[in-house]
């Protein structure tokens, strides 16, 4: 699963789309972890743009959790943004909104990452 990613200053926005479940989460995890290792360290932020994500199973949530731990371990941050209603409900029920800071839009997540990231987003 090649994840589309765009850089804004010290933040990397990764698009996650489709359905994330047991069947495809291994490939997703490998890709996501690579991004997180590169970008979410020493104040850097990874923002998961979930606007295209229709469904996430517990296996998918586990990928998010592992990414969050990795980011935390290397002093980076990880946010999620732009959740569809179904995914928002899953985050709510599973209380994963306690694990991640959830933002309504990518712009707001970038603003939380850094002023520069938001500025870069506005310019682009």
């Amino acid at each position, binding site marked *: 699963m090649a994840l589309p990613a765009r850089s804004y200053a010290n933040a990397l926005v990764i698009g996650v789309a489709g359905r994330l479940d047991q069947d495809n989460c291994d490939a997703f995890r490998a890709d996501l972890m690579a991004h997180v290792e590169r970008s979410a360290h020493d104040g850097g932020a990874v923002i998961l743009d979930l606007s295209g994500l229709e469904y996430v199973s517990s296996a998918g949530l586990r990928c998010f959790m592992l990414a969050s731990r990795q980011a935390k371990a290397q002093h980076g941050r990880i946010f999620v943004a732009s959740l569809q209603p179904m995914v928002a409900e899953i985050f709510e*029920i*599973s209380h994963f909104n306690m694990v991640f800071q959830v933002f309504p839009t990518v712009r707001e997540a970038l603003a939380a990452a850094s002023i520069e990231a938001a500025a870069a987003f506005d310019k682009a």
Partner: protein
Amino acid sequence: MPRERVADRVVVVVIDEKSLGAHGQWPWPRDLVADLVSRIAKAGPLVIGMDIFFPEPDRFSPGVIAARLEGKAPDVAARLKGLPSNDAMLGAALRAVPSVLGVAGIETTDARFAGPPPAPPVRFLDGAGERLRAYPGHLRNVREIDAGAAGHGLYSVDLEGGVARRVQLLGRFDGATVPALAVEIIRVALGSPPLVVAPVRDGTLELRFGEYAVPAQADGRAYLRYGHSRPGRFVSAADILDGTADLTALGGSLVVVGFTGLGLVDLTTTPLGEMAFGVENHAQAMEAILEGQFLRRVDLAPRIEAAVLVAFGLALFFLMPRSNAQRSAAYLVAGIVAVVSAGAAAFLFLGLLFDPVAPVLGAAAVFGVMQAGSLAEAQRQRQQLREQAARMAGELDAAKRIQMGLLPDPREVLDGERRADVAALLEPARTVGGDFYDCFMLDERRLFFAVADVSGKGLPASLFMASVKSILKSAALTVEGSVGGVLVRAQDEIRRENPESLFVTALAGVLDLETGELEYANAGHEPAWSHQPYGRPERLDASGGPPLCVLELYTYPTTRRTLVRGEWLLALSDGATEAMNPAKEFFGSERLRTTLAWLGDEADAVTIVTRVRDDVRRFSGTAEPADDLTLLAVRWEGPGGAVSGR
């Protein structure tokens, strides 16, 4: 492909059934043959070739008859003796016109024809002709006839499996080289120019005389390119002898005299599949020479065919393992078409003979062997897949057994308990999730129940689930205080034995069967539902925390609620709400609410779980369940137990 006729200069005079009917059986007296030759000669042909052979003296010669009459009629014998022999008459007739007689190569020597046969001078260039077919001996006509001939030609058409395909253009005898009858007839017609045999670079020969150059194999044979047999070129000897034949066609033509009469003929089959009389082969050969239509089979042809076979075979050998069966077959067909087309093109445009049969059959054999090989390989792979599937199924079975074996039967656990009615159900998905439920009495009045879901699937999830279940139970039994504290303790324990970083969603509750006081805590799990008598289904407060093992040191809050008598609870896993139908829609909370609303006040625990299960399965239809489905229902009957009548 038959050669098209462009010249009709060859005429065949045949001694046919009609001739035999009119003039008696063969052998005819040779004066009659002499008469035939003389009549043909009158028409003015360029040359007359005889496909008829007279190796013995004529028994009807006057001298021969005279010898037999000597004692019976001496006067007649005396008169007959004075007449010329029939053989001499035929010799004379033949001498009067340019004629060509035959020489037959034989595998033994014949005392009557010792010494070399008469032959034209042949010049061999650059050592050509060393591999010419050699005959130890020969037969030819009796001397009186033979003396009248202007030239001598070899009779020999090689029959390959009964099919006339090649003609021996040149044959070597001890001390002479004789050209084929067809060659000699033309050469004589041209005024007997010398014969030259020249080598060709590809190892074949070229026979040159006058303006003609005829290709031949190194052994002197040539491939005839046959035209269709045409009855129109035949003239019956009977018609010539009785003067009814139109002889104008014979003027300036090449005439061959031969047989078609039954019982006399040498019938051969031409490559076109037609029966042809032997004499026709000579006619065909002549026409081929006149039109330059000989076919060549170069010396290298067998090697080229072998090379094509090897190349074709190797191509298949390398292509087939990289292709599926259809594509392989396409390669084979394409290759065959290419080889056959190349052979046909060489034949049509270059007059070269290549045999595509060997390469095609060889390649087909390679194809067959390879196909059989790949079939065997496919079978082996299928077998492996089956074994793998069986192992997987074995693993899944083990996982299911672990999962199901750990689940308590509420009726046994709560045997004789009248204050609460509990039922549970877990239907594992094909891939086995990590759901479980539990229920047991903490003491005389407190019922503990839980529904949980371990992230991940298969055997690892099942093993993890088994460990989580026992940790949760021991936490429930040891932790005093709130159920939230039980989850905190359980998380603490699980964390230590969780190398895979799996997590668990769980809903745990403790119900006081005397008071109806319920306390519950939720770790990232589906909220439970409740239904009060005369009420509507209600989704319980979703407060709580993330799944166990997601956030370390999280303190799970405890929520409290007091049930009314007859109120029931349903705890479930996401296998219910996230069950999908073939259109990929989720069952969802609203459908669940509807199902629960229909259940009403009187439903017992078993009815609740089975009805919900049935509705979820009906919704999913043919879609295979992706996740375990777990349901646990608790109905509080009040401190005194179930109301009588139920």
